[in-house]
Each structure stands twice: as C-alpha cells, then as structure tokens.
C-alpha cells in the first residue's frame, strides 16, 4: 500500500495540520496527532475483522459433513490463537519493519513489538499499536481461508505446523512487498501496484496455496461421486451474513481513518457484493431453472473478495462491474474448471478466493479512477492502460511465491508428520478421531 499510503497523504497532511493548529494548547502536545474519530473507527474495524474468522468458520463448517464440522471450526480457532501470538512475536515485524534481505521481508526491529508505540503510525492519525492489531486480524483470517481446501482429510498436527510456517514464510513477505516495503515487490512495486485491502496479500495468496494443498493432499474418499451435500446450509448463510458485516471493517477500515476514502470503500464493497450475489443467482437460475441459496452466498463472497483490492480506488458503478465479473469468473472456475481438472478443492477456496482475487486485482487496474477520494491513479478505462500491466506483475509475483513456498512446506511436512489422516479416520470423521468430540448429540 505504498500506493495506499500515497493515497492517504492528503488526509494525513490534514491530520498534521490539525496537530499544528492545536499545537498551541497543552492538549495537542499530549494528543500528538492521534485523531479520536479515526481511532474509534479503526478500533471498531479491528473488532469487525476479528469477527470474520468465526464467520468464515461457519461459512465453511456448514458446508462439510456432520462428522467434520468441528474440525473446521477448530482450525479456524487455531488461527485465531496461534497466528495472534506469532504475529505479536515475529509476524508484524517481518511484515512492517524496515527492509531486510533487500526488501524480501521486514527486519527484526519490531520483534515482540519492541518499538511499536502509541504514537501515530507512519503518517496516519492512529496509534502504532492499533495499526499492529488491525493488521494482526488480517494475519488471522488469511491462513484460515485455506481451511476450506484441506477440509475433511488433513491431519490437525500437520495443519498447525503448516499454518504457522505459512504465516511467516508466505504471508509476511508478500504483506511486506505490498504494504510494508519501501519500494514494494523488490522495488518494482514502486511503480504503484494497487491493493487497497489485500487482494494479493490475502486472497490470491491463500487461494493459490489452497490449490497447491488440495493437489498434494489428493481427493477425499468417494469424491466426486458420493460426497454429500452441506450438512447445515443455514450455518453457511449465517457465516456469509457475518462476513459481509465484518468485511466493512476489512475494506473501509483499511483507509485507517474515518474519512471520505473509507466511505468510498464502504459503498463499493457493499455494491460489489450485491452485484456478485445477483449474478451468481442468475447463472444458477439459467442453468438449473432455479436460483440456489448456496449459489447466492458463494457469489456474495466472490464479490467481497474481488472488491477488496479495488474498494478504495473505484466508483460505486465501477464496483458493480468488479462484483458482477467476479461471479462470472468464479462460477466458471468452480463449475467448469474444477470438475474438468478433477482436483478436490473441497470448499472452492481457489475458485472463490484465488480466481476472484486475481480478477479483482486486474479489475482494479481497469476501473480505478483518480476521481475517488484521496486517490490519484487511473485504470485502463480511465485512460491508463499501464496500470493493468502493473497489476498483472503484482499478481504474478504473488502466485509464484505462494505456490512455490507452499509446495515446499507441504512436501517437507508430509515427510515429517504426514499430511493426511488414515482411511479409517477419514471415514469415521475428523471430529471424533482428531478432536475426540461430536458436534451434535443424536440422542440425549
């Protein structure tokens, strides 16, 4: 978000201005450029993003079989707890400290939050600790997104190890390039790749790694002939509702201020999601003579994914295109591509997050407009074709890094622990075999 930063400057100059203005009063000194309104908004946004992980747990958990629902929820709570600790110890530093290894990753300056203060972060008007925890919520949900690809067959121990390493070796570097690095992307990002709230860092990253994981894990028993329908669709719908709600913190919160840019991100996020839900529903209707609810919520999530990198840069009408397009590409990936290639990405993490994420990153290069508040960049449709190439480059970098590192990690873990549970365990279900619990009593 070197770009985002730039985007923010005006707002921040303003923040500074206020500080100056108040410098006369004792208050000012004490307050040191922290804006109460901005702080309130980012506090709330952090809470909203936290909620997205339980929300995701239900979105995924409702789609698996009864015997595996707890394993999904457990893996999401693993992310909530493990990633948080890793983040405050190493992750934040690796992502946001000054360059190390020539910008591949951040240095150790902030290990254990050393030097992360309550002073305004960078040129923002919120405390550094708040920026840290807000970003920490992103570091929780991103690995959690991959859970949908492992579903119903991966060893919990292997998941713990993989998730932890993945955060440090895949997420943090990419986050550093896009948001934390001086030049970003090994200095290449200097040319201004746009990613407002995490299209590359979060969705492409997780989506591609998920694909790799599902290929290495292999298919579930009986896939595709006799896998069973979602055991509790209302749970998936509940998850979607909470995701939509939380995503406002994810996207609009990324403005790091309660300003016009946040409002723009809020509006575009909402509109794109609605458009995507409509499109997927329509495709179902045409294809199966009935619109399905699972289709509509899958579309909504695809729209949320695609608008993530774009939300601060496009207009509400542009957002309709970004969202609508997201459902088209994701629908194609889920309904045509996956069956054809025959991999078992159980809950379509790649189809929804990977493919719609890539679409979103590109679409940002198409519909970005400098008319958006605090934004200075135009996309193809506003006369700046170059931006598309810049976006493509960022996408390519992310895909390659995520794919290669995830592949290596999984191979190694397979040797050390083994990735997959036994046939018998898979049949009985992970809840009982991996966690010694049953989700619902049949008789009590």
């Amino acid at each position: 978000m070197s770009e985002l930063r730039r985007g923010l400057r005006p707002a921040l100059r303003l923040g500074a201005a206020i500080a100056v203005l108040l410098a006369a009063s004792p208050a000012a000194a004490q307050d040191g450029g922290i804006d109460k309104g901005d702080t309130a908004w980012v506090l709330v946004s952090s809470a909203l993003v936290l909620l997205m992980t339980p929300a995701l747990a239900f979105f995924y958990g409702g789609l698996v079989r009864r015997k595996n629902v707890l394993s999904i929820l457990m893996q999401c709570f693993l992310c909530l707890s493990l990633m948080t600790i890793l983040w405050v110890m190493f992750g934040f530093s690796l992502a946001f400290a000054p360059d190390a290894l020539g910008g591949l990753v951040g240095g150790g300056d902030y290990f254990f939050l050393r030097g992360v203060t309550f002073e305004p972060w960078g040129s923002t008007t919120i405390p550094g600790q708040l920026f840290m925890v807000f970003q920490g919520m992103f570091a929780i949900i991103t690995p959690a997104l991959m859970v949908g690809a492992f579903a119903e067959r991966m060893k919990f121990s292997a998941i713990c190890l993989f998730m932890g390493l993945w955060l440090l070796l895949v997420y943090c570097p990419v986050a550093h390039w896009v948001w934390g690095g001086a030049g970003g992307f090994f200095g290449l990002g200097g040319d201004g790749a746009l990613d407002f709230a995490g299209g590359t860092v979060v969705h492409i990253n997780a989506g591609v790694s998920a694909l790799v994981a599902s290929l290495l894990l292999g298919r579930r028993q009986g896939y595709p002939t006799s896998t069973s329908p979602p055991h509790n669709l209302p749970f998936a719908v509940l998850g979607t509702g909470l995701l939509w709600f939380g995503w406002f913190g994810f996207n609009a919160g990324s403005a790091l201020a309660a300003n016009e840019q946040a409002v723009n991100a809020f509006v575009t996020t909402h509109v794109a999601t609605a458009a995507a839900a409509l499109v997927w529903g329509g495709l179902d209707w045409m294809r199966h003579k009935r619109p399905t609810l699972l289709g509509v919520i899958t579309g909504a999530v695809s729209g949320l994914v695609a608008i993530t990198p774009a939300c601060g840069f496009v207009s509400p009408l542009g957002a309709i295109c970004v969202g609508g397009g997201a459902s088209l590409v994701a629908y194609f990936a889920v309904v045509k591509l996956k069956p054809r290639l025959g991999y078992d990405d159980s809950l379509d993490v790649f189809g929804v997050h990977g493919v719609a994420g890539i679409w979103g990153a590109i679409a940002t290069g198409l519909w970005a407009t400098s008319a958006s508040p605090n934004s200075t960049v135009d996309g193809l449709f506003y006369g700046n074709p170059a931006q598309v190439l810049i976006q493509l480059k960022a996408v390519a970098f992310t895909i390659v890094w995520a794919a290669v590192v995830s592949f290596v990690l999984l191979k190694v873990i397979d040797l050390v622990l083994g990735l997959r549970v036994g046939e018998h365990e898979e049949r009985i279900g992970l809840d009982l075999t991996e966690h010694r619990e049953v989700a619902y009593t049949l008789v009590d």
Partner: protein
Amino acid sequence: MKYVIAIFQPDRLNDVMARLEQKEIHLVTVTNVMGRGRQKGVAAVYRSHKEAGSLLRKVKIEIAVNDEYLQQTIDAIVAGAHSGEIGDGKIFVLSLEECVRIRTSETGSVAIG
C-alpha cells in the same frame, strides 16, 4: 399381536394421529425417516453439482396392537395419510411375539395398550 409400521408424508402426521385417537389407539412411536419411492425425489444442486435423486422426508410410525385392533389401525392410518398422490406411502404388518411394559413388567396383550 401385530407390529404395524407405516411410512407416509410428514405433513399428514397430525391427521393420522388424530384418526388414531378417535379409534382409541393412543400409543404410537414416531420416527423421522427419508424415503425413496415411486415419487422420484427432486434432484438437489450444490454449486452446480447434482445430487442424484435425493431422498424425501417421510415420517414412520410404529404401533403394536392386539389382532382385533389391526384393521381399524390400518383404516385410521389410511384415512389420515391418503391424498391419492404418489408419495402417500405404505403400511407394513409384522407379527409380534411378545410385548413387555417396562413400568410393570406385565407381558402379552395386556401390556400393549
């Protein structure tokens, strides 16, 4: 003694229970089941993956009765569950060798009611 098993449409349960009441057949056990019958299930679709002719919800009731009650039990069920449409269901009659009332340890016909 007979052991009557009937499977029919869930939304007929209340009617059937009422009919049985009228005939003074109060004791019934009800189970939630799924059935595949003449009435082919509508195929469900999940992310465009068709679930082959999915099973339909039905309800199953079990009634142990003395032989003299058999006919009116069947009549009551038919009266309550009949709609003339495919999917109405079936009644099965098995012979019941013994019956024990747990509360009193009574056995045989007396224990049934």
